[in-house]
């Protein structure tokens, strides 16, 4: 298995943690040294020095790299709808598969659109489809999501239209969607800030229940209980103060929150070993938050652990930390050149664990994915991509004076004056074709 450490020398201050990790648990990337398993969880194997590795270091896994399904009663309990062997279960599994294939297709199309100058930038999600689709599939509509910038598949699962995913990256708006329309916040660029927003929103849910404003759901299903929040963070974000404070606050108030970390091994050029000398999941324990490490390229395991964590949140059990071990197969963004800092061999090794191929192998082996199904899924993905491209290319730039909109919720004299000033300035070019129409908030700089 490839090291994430590359060839930088060991006396590098910034890699002190990495050396420690090698003696502590073999790897901090959650990968295993072979495909077998000696633990209670059949998908994986303990890595490194047995005396220091802890059971929780082993990512929970149901589908191994070949797509073979291993039973695990503790997790299977959450997967009855996709495991039943009924037509419904097959449809549910195929839906997960289609969602992952479409996410990858959207991602590829967006990357192409950026290369063609239609987008300013794009942060690809390739490799993280299972972590995103599996976790998002566990959500209720009335749950709320706070994410960073890479969770395109989560946003799509929440109901964000493909074109809306790209608006921000085209540079035409600060938010591609209305957070309340899909119960997912505008993606966050400041690393880690959203974790605390998740805590606060979850505190609000708690307060709503206490005030009797909302009733916990009681349908007799595993989804029963209050609404909950999932806050997505990256492995790099785990170093930020905000994320660590989120752990503290969430634990103190026992809010209904799942802090979901996609450990994709990299924060731009920095390997996860630079952020932590031990598996990230171990941090949770010190904050008094239950933590679980899951194979993030196994959509079934991700779905199961997220459902369990949400169940805990909904039923008063407080926050859970999930570390989904996955891999950023592409560049950090379209502006990044990963060949400067990581070996191609690493990507090759992770390609063996490709989440989409893994699910396909499982489905094929069980006769659940026929050639016709595959053709249909591909066609659906192509259709979404075509719709995306047409929609994005057709997007128009907003009117210039819209930059003064929504600065404040109410009127503000300074912004109103500057808006008038800029309008007068642009009017000076009136004989050119500048369009300064606004939709108008009467020049106040407030909401409209």
């Amino acid at each position, binding site marked *: 298995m490839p090291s994430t450490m*590359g060839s*930088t*020398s060991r*006396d*590098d*201050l*910034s*890699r002190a943690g990495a050396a420690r990790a090698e003696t502590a648990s073999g790897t901090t990337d959650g990968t295993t040294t072979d495909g077998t398993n000696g633990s209670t969880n059949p998908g994986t194997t303990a890595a490194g020095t047995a005396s220091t590795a802890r059971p929780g270091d082993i990512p929970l896994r149901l589908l191994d790299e070949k797509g073979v399904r291993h039973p695990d009663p503790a997790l299977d309990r959450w997967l009855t709808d996709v495991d039943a062997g009924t037509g419904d279960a097959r449809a549910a599994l195929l839906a997960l598969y289609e969602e992952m294939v479409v996410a990858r297709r959207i991602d590829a199309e967006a990357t192409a659109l950026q290369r063609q100058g239609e987008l*300013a*930038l794009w942060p690809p999600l390739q490799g993280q489809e299972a972590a995103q689709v599996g976790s998002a599939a566990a959500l209720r509509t009335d749950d709320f999501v706070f994410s960073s910038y890479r969770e395109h598949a989560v946003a799509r699962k929440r109901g964000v239209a493909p074109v809306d995913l790209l608006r*921000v*990256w*085209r*540079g*035409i*708006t*600060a938010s591609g969607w209305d957070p309340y329309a899909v119960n997912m916040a505008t993606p966050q*660029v*400041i*690393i880690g800030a959203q974790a605390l927003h998740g805590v606060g929103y979850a505190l609000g849910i708690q307060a709503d229940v206490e005030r009797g404003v909302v009733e916990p759901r009681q349908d007799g299903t595993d989804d029963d209980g209050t609404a909950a929040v999932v806050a997505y963070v990256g492995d*790099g*974000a785990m*170093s*930020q*103060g*905000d994320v660590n404070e989120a752990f503290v606050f969430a634990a103190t108030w026992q809010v209904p929150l799942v802090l979901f970390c996609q450990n994709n091994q990299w*924060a*731009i*050029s*920095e390997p996860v070993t*630079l*952020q932590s000398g031990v598996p990230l999941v171990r941090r949770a324990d010190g904050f008094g938050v239950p933590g679980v490490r899951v194979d993030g390229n196994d959509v079934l395991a991700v779905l199961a652990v997220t459902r369990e964590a949400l169940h805990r949140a909904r039923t008063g059990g407080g926050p859970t930390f999930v570390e989904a071990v996955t891999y950023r197969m592409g560049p950090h963004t379209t*502006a990044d050149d990963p060949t*400067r*800092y990581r070996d191609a061999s690493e990507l090759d090794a992770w390609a063996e664990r490709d989440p989409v191929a893994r699910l396909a192998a499982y489905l094929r082996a069980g006769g659940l994915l026929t050639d016709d199904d595959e053709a249909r899924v591909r066609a659906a993905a192509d259709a979404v991509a075509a719709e995306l491209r047409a929609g994005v290319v057709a997007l128009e*730039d*907003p009117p*210039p*004076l*819209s*930059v*003064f909109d929504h*600065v404040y919720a109410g009127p503000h004299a*300074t*912004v109103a*004056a*500057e808006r*008038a*000033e*800029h309008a*007068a*300035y642009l009017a*000076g070019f009136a004989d050119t074709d500048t369009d300064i129409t606004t939709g108008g908030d009467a020049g106040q*700089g407030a909401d409209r």
Partner: protein
Amino acid sequence: MTTQTLTLAKALGAGLRRAMTDDPTVMVLGEDIGRLGGVYRVTDGLQAEFGPRRVVDTPLAESGILGTAVGLAYRGYRPVVEIQFDGFVYVAFDQIVSQLAKMHARTNGKVKLPVTIRIPVAGGIGAAEHHSESPEAYFVHTAGLRVVSVSNPQDASTVLRQAIACDDPVVFFEPKRLYHVKGEVDADLPLDDAPPMGTARVVRPGDDVTLVTFGSHVATALDAATAASDEGVSVEVIDLRSLSPIDHDTIAASVRRTGRLVVLHEGPRQAGVGAEIATSVTERCFDFLEAPPARVTGYDIPYPPAKLEGNQVPDLDRVLVAVDRVLGRVPASGAGVEVGA
């Protein structure tokens, strides 16, 4: 003296290399600065040359970076920290404002804090949110910090070395729009031969209007001066170089001759650097002024999405409108500059 043609980014790298060679206590810290060489490649090759103990990739936490730099300085080091983009410096605000800036005074002068904070700054590059901010006023407003902004590769190299050699904390702004701009650079210029760090420079002499600016907008101002000269108006352009302290003497000397002031910057107008300069000029040169000072600035709005940023970043035309106005050529209302009293 040997010069070479370097981009501003390369000139910064040359300045860092020189400073690290001259002083073994200089350390460079930041996110992605080691093997990657920084997102703008300013530190390219430094880790290979000076080793990973002096060129340190930090965990992803800006407050952590600045707090660590304070501790390193306490121990006698000269940390140069890179904040990856302007919008991420706020995460480190407490460590900068409450710790770094005040530590020398707090220790009654016993502890020196020679920390340099390099920040890629401002917009006009079609970037995502938080990647185009002009936060200089916050730092100018903070006692204990020196603040500089460079406009050309030579200054990038020498002012950076001066900042690192300075015993006070220095916030060092690098306009992103200029990273790829080339110029002649003497990377080994003796610092004593360079103008002191706190001084402004007249980059184009003129008689009718004083145009004060800094960073990437020195280029905008020079373009405006050229355009104005076509109409017979002689504009003097001053590159502030230092925003704290501000070289009020150089500005006042110019305005006493021209009688007219235009200040140009990209950051928002309210309580911005332009307000400080206009006020100081009014105080010092009131009897010499032929017209109220004019400010050409970014508006007091969140930095707009990339496709709309042209409305926020001052351009040649907005500067010319202001020049016209201090010359009494357009009505005092409207037209892209602040309406004077």
